């Protein structure tokens, strides 16, 4: 059950668009950083495949310039 955090860099002037696009994805939480240049994204998925699919979806968002992973944890399943 992977939990990962990322720094997401929007294209110039596209931060709001990126927040909306990320917020619409299931298992994906967006935290705007205090400065104006980036977002913190946390993904919380059930398994490795779901995690990879979600990451691929995030990477197709046009307002996203770069996605850099900060940390990744894998927790045991709850059932």
């Amino acid at each position: 059950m992977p939990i990962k955090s990322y720094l997401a860099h929007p294209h110039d002037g596209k931060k709001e668009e990126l927040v909306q696009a990320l917020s619409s994805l299931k298992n994906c939480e967006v935290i705007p950083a205090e400065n104006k240049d980036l977002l913190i994204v946390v993904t919380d998925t059930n398994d490795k495949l779901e995690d990879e699919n979600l990451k691929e979806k995030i990477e197709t968002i046009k307002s996203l310039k770069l996605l850099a992973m900060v940390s990744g944890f894998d927790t045991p399943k709850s059932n």
Partner: protein
Amino acid sequence: MYTSLTNRRSFIKKMAIMSAMTAAATMFPGILFAEEQEKNLPKGGNLDWKKAPCRFCGVGCGVLVGIDNGKAVAVKGDPKSPVNKGLCCVKGYHSVMSIYGKDRLTKPLVKKNGQYVETSMKEALDLIASKMKETISEHGKDAVSIYGSGQWTIPDGYVASKLFKGCIGTNNVEANARLCMASAVTGFLTSFGLDEPMGCYEDIDNADVFVLWGNNMAEMHPVLFSRLLDQRLKRGVKIIDFATRTTRTSMAADKSIIFQPQTDLAVANAICYEIINNGWVNKSFVEKHCSFSKGLTDMGYGLEDKYSFNDKPESIDFEAYKTFLQDYTPEKVEKISGVSAKDIKYLASFYGDPNKKVMSLWCMGMNQHTRGTWINNLVYNIHLLTGKISTPGNSPFSLTGQPSACGTVREVGTLTHKLPHGVVTNEEHRKFAAEIWDVPVENIDPKPSYHTVEMFRALDRGDIKFMWIQVTNPMVTMPKLKRYRDACEKEGRFIVVSDIYPTPTTDIADVILPSAMWIEREGMYGNSERRTQYFEKMIEPSGEAMSDTWQIVEVAKRLGYEKQFYYNEATHIEEIYNEYRRHHEGKKHAMAPLEVLKSQPGAQWPYVDGKSTKWRFNSEYDPACSNGEKFHFYGKPDGKAVIWQRPYEPAPEVPDSDYPFWLCTGRVVEHWHTGSMTRRIPVLHKAMPHAYVELNPEQAKDMQIRTGDKVKLTTRRGEIVLPASVNERGVPERNQVFVPFFDENMLINDVTLDAFCPISKQPDYKKCAVKVEKV
């Protein structure tokens, strides 16, 4: 206590968010300043805040350590420090937690019949002294050695040098800064005749353009990188990342330019070609303040034992240099480097623009390089040709990796050829040191012995029988590690290791001494901008732990050098520092008095008439300038800096059909070097729990490798299996992989190459050939 899975997931999620926020804070200014940090402190505490330089990295941030009932419980950035202005990075913020790991070494251990047995400090020190005496008596003084560190405090390194070079009479003194900063030293010495940067961090507040030469500042020097980003927000400065892979620094830069490994030499020459070809040379500066030289080429790479090389500089004129550069037109260099001629011209245009102030910054990419001295020279050439040097904002700036690589290794001189002032080969320098050390001048051997790689080779051959290792972890960091690990375990070798935690290096020790760490003792560090900073003893050492300084003093006394090691235990740091200052008297390197260091967040040498020197070689700021001109490069006899003719030469081992990838190694923001301290800080360990191999995403797809898959790396030295990392923190180019070296369970240095720069003797950890296979 039962913790539900839901709570655990919630905790882990919070930790993931915390890690990202911390990373964001280190990359972007304005988040974790002192006020924000204070919000997180324990409530109701009665903290006593004491100042110190940070224990990690060479930036030298000022921190305030919160002491509560004899325990260090909190850290915040020191707002009074001109280095970090209150900001802290993730390592600094958690630094005190590294003191309290569960497995701190608290008692001396002696290996008996293959088992470590606890003993008293007195007995352990007696044993070390008797082993040293026995080794010297049976095999001669050059059979004993000490291997220290850029994390040694200034007093640690000073007493080590005094004991080994001055009293015992062997130049077998080396430090791990040979692995990280030696090329910077020889770069400075060959170009300017004196070591260490002419500028300072205040250049960041004045430069218009920053060119980062193979330097992932966002992870390695996060606080300084934040200062760059802060300047971009305030003044719109430009940041250009010139590197071999895409990193967090590239992501935050205005432009990322990727070059093929080793070809930075060719690109630097192409920039110089452009500067001359476009008439951007600052003619009056070059005529007054520069000379031209060339040295030997095809020097080899130091791969064989007892390799030696001495350069033979030869004066040339500007026309000869100009002719040499004809081989480095941007169009020709594009073919070697993979950097487009357009991008080379783009880089050159900033250096050539008289209205732009340019700061070049570098660290391991240029220093861990088999032509490390040359590439340092070549970047100086760019600044010298345009006269963009030694003025606020115009600054070629070599960053250090360790908290006192400059202060202890370079200034105290804990390298085989060095003395605190000057070199062992110079008779006057030997006389000067001998007088202060109160030893006969004949004691100081005029011949350097072994640089680091050769010192471990000598241990392997049996030429060295005794080695004392302090504050460093060579059994993780030495290149081609297996050979040197086997060497340490050979019969007839006696190894002493002083450290604070068990490491792969304590595993090969015959005696392990528990060391007092950082604020458990008193000391000083010297950072990248010539700033010496003092810290007091704030807490009691763990168990029987003793400072590295006092360990050496105690052994020196046992060896019969009571006269030279006259220090009183209560006041020895002050006595040692005052003695050390005598070596640097004069306008070129005077050190600030101890009371000044105690009263403020450090001082920059040369410290003259109560004032730090911010820009050396510029008569407006540097009292040592005496030629009546605006600039005076007084490190050279003719007062001129040298523009060097240095060609591009390939790396010793390049990818081929058997080993088709480049292997590059390096660090990550969460861990300090080999992770022996930061891996014991839970939040940092969990944020970065193990090493990995970064692959190019397209190539990983072709090879059907996804993140987490096991990948085998094979070089001519051996093989290692690591989990893959694809499209995560860094993105290598095709046919290149990157592996961090912090993980003692995945020793990447077992497969690296021990080739080094023939001038600096610094190994190249950034380039060797490797085969990559999915397991």
